[in-house]
């Protein structure tokens, strides 16, 4: 209860604001239509019409919910109109990409912390790599991989990994360098091999950084997957759903897909958060 109440309050506040915004943003269209038809609108008319448009500027919350509900529960989950189906397609690529990206980020961070040469040469280019607009090269990646016969989940996972490795890399380079002088000195007196320093000191003390990065990384992986789904020929996945919704101006469908994606992201972040709580507790660091 203690946890639900604040969330409910905030959600309620947002819903109220949202309805207000929906009336405000959608009213222009209602007035325009009335002007074209040469009629007047009353306030009651205005409100009821702004909430029931087929292509609203901002759909009302209940319209989005209805769209979500229809997509989730109104279809067989194997149907191409089911958000569960599209969500699953996206989720599987996201997870694959996240695992790949996390591994890459971790390995690079470990390398950078241990090798001066890597620190000096890789880091600037890792940064540069992230400034390449992904949407610009995603189609090329997809095209090149497709011509090599690689299709489906793998190209999407690669693009997801490309976006998610960077937050992990930046966070972990910091985290792995977080131990203070005395903690490092202690291990020096034992002449500890680097692997053991990593394992027994650097990794444990990087945990708060790791989890903050993982949360960002998993969200980034999802964005990557969705981006990759756009040029993947608008087939399946929440990204394809968003795109086709946009293409046909079906605002409600866009918002429903958007919410499905956000729910997915929130769930993934929550999973990482739960992992964090468990780990920190076991490490006696929970507060």
């Amino acid at each position: 209860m203690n946890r639900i109440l604040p969330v409910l309050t905030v959600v309620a506040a947002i819903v109220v604001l949202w309805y207000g915004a929906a009336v405000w943003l959608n009213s222009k269209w209602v007035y325009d239509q009335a002007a074209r038809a040469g009629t007047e609108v009353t306030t009651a008319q205005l409100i009821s019409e702004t909430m029931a448009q087929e292509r609203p500027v901002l759909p009302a919350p209940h319209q989005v919910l209805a769209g979500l509900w229809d997509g989730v529960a109104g279809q067989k989950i194997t149907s191409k109109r089911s958000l569960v189906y599209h969500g699953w397609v996206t989720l599987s690529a996201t997870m694959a990409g996240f695992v790949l990206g996390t591994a890459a980020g971790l390995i690079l961070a470990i390398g950078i912390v241990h090798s001066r040469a890597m620190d000096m040469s890789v880091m600037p280019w890792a940064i540069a790599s992230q400034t390449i607009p992904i949407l610009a090269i995603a189609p090329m990646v997809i095209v090149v991989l497709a011509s090599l016969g690689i299709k489906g989940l793998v190209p999407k996972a690669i693009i997801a990994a490309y976006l998610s490795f960077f937050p992990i890399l930046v966070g972990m380079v910091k985290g792995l360098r977080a131990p203070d002088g005395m903690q490092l000195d202690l291990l020096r007196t034992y002449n500890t091999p680097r692997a053991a320093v990593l394992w027994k000191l650097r990794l444990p003390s990087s945990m708060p950084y790791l989890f903050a990065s993982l949360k960002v990384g998993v969200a980034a992986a999802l964005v990557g997957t969705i981006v990759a789904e756009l040029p993947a020929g608008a087939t399946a996945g929440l990204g394809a759903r968003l795109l086709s919704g946009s293409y046909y101006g079906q605002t409600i469908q866009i918002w429903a897909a958007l919410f499905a994606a956000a729910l997915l992201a929130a769930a993934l972040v929550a999973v990482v958060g739960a992992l964090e709580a468990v780990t920190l507790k076991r490490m006696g660091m929970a507060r």
Partner: protein
Amino acid sequence: EEVKLQLKWVTQAQFAGYYVAKDKGFYKEEGLDVDIMPGGPDISPTQVMAGGGADVTVDWMPSALAAREKGLALVNIAQPFKHSGMMLTCLKETGIKGPEDFKGKTLGVWFGGNEYPFLSWMATLGIPTDGSAEGVKVLKQGFNVDPLLQKQAACISTMTYNEYWQVIDAGLTPEDLVTFKYEDEGVATLEDGLYVMEDKLKDPAFKDKMVKFVRASMKGWKYAEANPDEAAEIVLENDESGAQTEKHQKRMMGEIAKLTMGSNGALDPADYERTVKILLAGGSDPVISKAPEGAYTLEITDAALK
């Protein structure tokens, strides 16, 4: 035998002929196994061809000729679309009555290889597109028709078979709108044709495969023209995103049929010459700088239609 076909856009009735041919087994009858790859806003069919990702692609001629000039030797092997479906749709309330009223207005245009017809038209009209006072302000139009509905643009690009109806579905009536069809303005360029790489055509086996492919595809197109509702349903079944609606696709199929009507698949050299002329007319910055050579072949259709 396998054929990979790259579409120009997402799965929709615009490509009904190919889906029908696949679904009705016309390809199989020819011994072909066709893989139809949908496109999207970020897929450039020319690039897919350059990367060797497909054997044959559906593209518009302006973009194909421009690519050819850039060194990507695409060749038109068939032209199922006789007419152009492109138009500019304007809000009547902006006061636009004819092309002379465009000055100072904001116009929405598709880019990514689809801007050439528009640029050629403006060049013929002598209207600069740099946003200067006596010219028009050009916006890169996104996926949909919102800029018109939000009045962010006075006119937007639409296709007779697609975006125009989205404007209507949104609640505007034809009376609220003024439309300029490229055909009517005399600047129609050839749309959805089939293109392959020039060097591949030297291979007789490939040529033979394309003959079969074009024959089966045209059979599909003619079937779709005759049975528009069934064709629309076949398209719906093949739409993996599950986003298309039956109403919209059936209507689109009806409009598409008007554009394919009158084509047996063979390119009419007169249409080709007209397109080239329009593209060359682009004032200071024409789409292509000289008339291309070998940009089409009638061999395939000749063999296919025997």
